[in-house]
């Protein structure tokens, strides 16, 4: 192949196709009949668990063989089984960190070409072409670890592009990005499609991001087959409401927002001339006061120090300079500086919800997980049981009381991580990106719980780049 001769767009056809993972009883995808013509741009929607990611992985040929699961019917890319047409389809995944393969930008983009046996000179020509197409103008020996989330996703796109695929598969490529990153990646995809004319299948919860780019919307049904298929306007008109109810972010169907009472109370915690960072300051001179009955948002792009500020404010990281001081109302018998409090003293005063729920799970069952905090407070057994039962019910976890926290779904893990912190009734709740990558249903649930907490006289401090979340909840905002 020579420069400027991209591969021809690929054709996809499924007839009665289905897939069941080896460890599951339920079919992930079932009875799928679908034809995608070369050059079509398809947005693939469906409730969680409808099998969208499974279909993309099957098309990319990475679903695995017979030991990984069982398939039925036929699924073809350009008339051949996808596992035989490696390189025809290129897949970009959701998590920017987990798909960077090598340490340097150039080497990472070259990786796919090497695997396809492309000669060296041709490889480096393609690397440059691909980086140019996604607009990633950094040195080839630039460290991949030093890229932002949006840049990492464009890097992954370039790596796929260098393989000259005829079918571009994107699995929620912008779910983990800040708004600037989302735009970056979307425009990169747009440019790539203009240049290559490749067929596109994109899975995404947030419909508005991709709507301008696609010419067809396909909705998978969790029961198998398709719920809808056609032009974007027609499908969204017919299916918008039910999709929104299933957790898809459909324009014109915003999730319900809670009414806020907004009655600020006494001051609880204040930061004065605060500098935060892990070893050296990444932000300086921060002033922030938090009162009971209020919600404060910390906003700013990825990497601007939102998480570090939240953790410093929550008494988990020591300030580089300046002070975080608790008022008498919050501290009670404890000292002035939260970072000097014992771990146990934090429990009733400041609770922290981590972005990755798995970082904070400690036990083997949901019920034990909820009891960790109350036990550390040495509450009487009856009181512990009462609190745990109440939370199980309130956060719809009662059916899962005996399940292992690590085995829950994304939304359930999120609810549990909030519940474990609520169990010790802290006056202040600090949350790190609480709505990251969530479907609209989990989002609405979480916002409702937090609103209730604040109106009951609690306070929350949340780092977030989710505008809707900030507008729904925040009384004040710190912009980094």
């Amino acid at each position, binding site marked *: 192949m020579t420069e400027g001769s991209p591969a021809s767009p690929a054709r996809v056809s499924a007839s009665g196709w289905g897939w069941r993972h080896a460890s599951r009883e339920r079919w992930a995808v079932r009875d799928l009949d679908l034809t995608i013509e070369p050059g079509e741009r398809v947005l693939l929607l469906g409730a969680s668990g409808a099998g969208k990611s499974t279909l993309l992985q099957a098309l990319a040929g990475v679903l695995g063989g017979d030991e990984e699961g069982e398939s039925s019917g036929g699924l073809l890319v350009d008339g051949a089984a996808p596992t035989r047409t490696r390189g025809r389809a290129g897949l970009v995944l959701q998590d920017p960190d987990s798909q960077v393969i090598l340490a340097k930008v150039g080497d990472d983009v070259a*990786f796919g070409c090497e695997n396809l046996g492309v000669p060296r000179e041709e490889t480096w020509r393609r690397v440059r072409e691909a980086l140019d197409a996604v607009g990633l103008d950094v040195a080839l020996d630039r460290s991949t670890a030093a890229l932002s989330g949006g840049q990492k996703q464009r890097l992954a796109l370039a790596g796929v592009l260098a393989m000259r695929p005829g079918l571009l598969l994107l699995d929620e490529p912008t779910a983990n990005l800040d708004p600037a990153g989302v735009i970056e990646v979307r425009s990169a995809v747009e440019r790539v499609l203009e240049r290559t004319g490749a067929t596109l299948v994109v899975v995404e919860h947030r419909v508005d991001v991709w709507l301008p780019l696609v010419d067809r919307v396909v909705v998978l049904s969790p029961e198998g087959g398709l719920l809808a298929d056609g032009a974007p306007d027609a499908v969204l008109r017919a299916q918008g409401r039910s999709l929104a109810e299933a957790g898809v972010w459909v324009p014109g169907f915003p999730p319900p927002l809670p009414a806020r009472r907004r009655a600020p109370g006494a001051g609880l915690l204040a930061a004065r001339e605060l500098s935060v960072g892990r070893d050296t300051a990444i932000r300086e001179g921060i002033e922030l006061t938090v009162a009971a009955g209020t919600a404060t948002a910390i906003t700013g792009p990825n990497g601007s120090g939102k998480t570090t500020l939240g953790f410093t404010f929550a008494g988990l990281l020591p300030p580089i300079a300046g002070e975080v001081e608790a008022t008498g109302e919050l501290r009670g018998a404890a000292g002035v500086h939260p970072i000097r409090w014992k771990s146990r003293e934090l429990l009733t005063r400041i609770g922290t919800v981590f972005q990755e729920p798995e970082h904070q799970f400690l036990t083997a069952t949901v019920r034990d997980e909820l009891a960790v905090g109350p036990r550390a407070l040495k509450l009487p057994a009856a009181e512990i049981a009462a609190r745990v039962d109440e939370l199980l019910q309130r956060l719809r976890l009662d059916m899962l009381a005996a399940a292992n926290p690590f085995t829950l779904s994304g939304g359930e893990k999120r609810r549990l991580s909030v519940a474990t912190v609520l169990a010790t009734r802290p006056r202040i709740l600090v949350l790190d990106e609480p709505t990251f990558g969530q479907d609209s249903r989990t989002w609405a649930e979480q916002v409702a719980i937090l609103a209730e907490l604040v109106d009951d006289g609690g306070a929350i401090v949340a780092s977030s780049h989710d505008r809707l979340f900030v507008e729904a909840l925040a009384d004040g905002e710190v912009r980094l």
Partner: protein
Amino acid sequence: MSVGDEGSRQARPEKVARPEKVARPEKSATHPFDRVNPVSKLGAALLLAACLVLTIDWVSASTALVLELMAIPFLGVRPREFWLRTLPVWIAAPFTGLTILLYGQAAGNVYWEWFAIRISDGSIDLATATAVRVLAIGLPAVVLFITVDPTDLADGLAQVWHLPARFVVGALAALRLVGLFLDDWKYLELARRARGVGDTGRMRRIPGQVFALLVLAIRRGSKLATAMEARGFGGPTQRTWARDSRFGWREWAVLIAGLMVGMIAIAAAVLTGHWNFIVG
């Protein structure tokens, strides 16, 4: 974190037109020694160590150490970096010596005795020989590897030594996850404090934390594997290499230099009658 980079990128749009070059551009910084194939550095360190573990006497170790200290300034390692990276070796050497001084096999005059401790002519000789030997093997190993880039090493192992590509490239990709695991571990620590169990039993918490890290590691690992497979890794096609890994005169020179230092050290020991073959 890359906000600044984006800014500087937009400020210099003329950079877009990049001259066509076939090979990956060389690192801007660099000393000729940095470009020597890592496989040769690895070989030199192994040959040197092999010579020095044959005997245990102070003459061979000191000879090697003196030769090495004369060579190291020419290998392009900055003094600060040298001391920082070799610090563990400088600490380990005297401690190893001290242990042998106190507990080593006694011979000749005994100077001090207390329970199992016995300092004698024999243990003094042995202690010196061992301490110097730790330095003589440890310092060059560290110095040779300061300048090694893991990607270049993998290229060398696969192209020069012909180790299986699947294994070498897989290990290289996994290495990149280590940084993520370190971050995970920090978060796990902070989360223990946040959950009210951070006051006591730091050691007792470790198994739980390790388990959580393992779960996260498996998840990250399988995502990485999917990403690699999606880019054709592990497919039936014969893999090509984007970077050429050569073994030329420079590589042979480094290899021979390593061997020479070892041989001269052995010769010195034999000629002065200090040769002390370790086996038998």
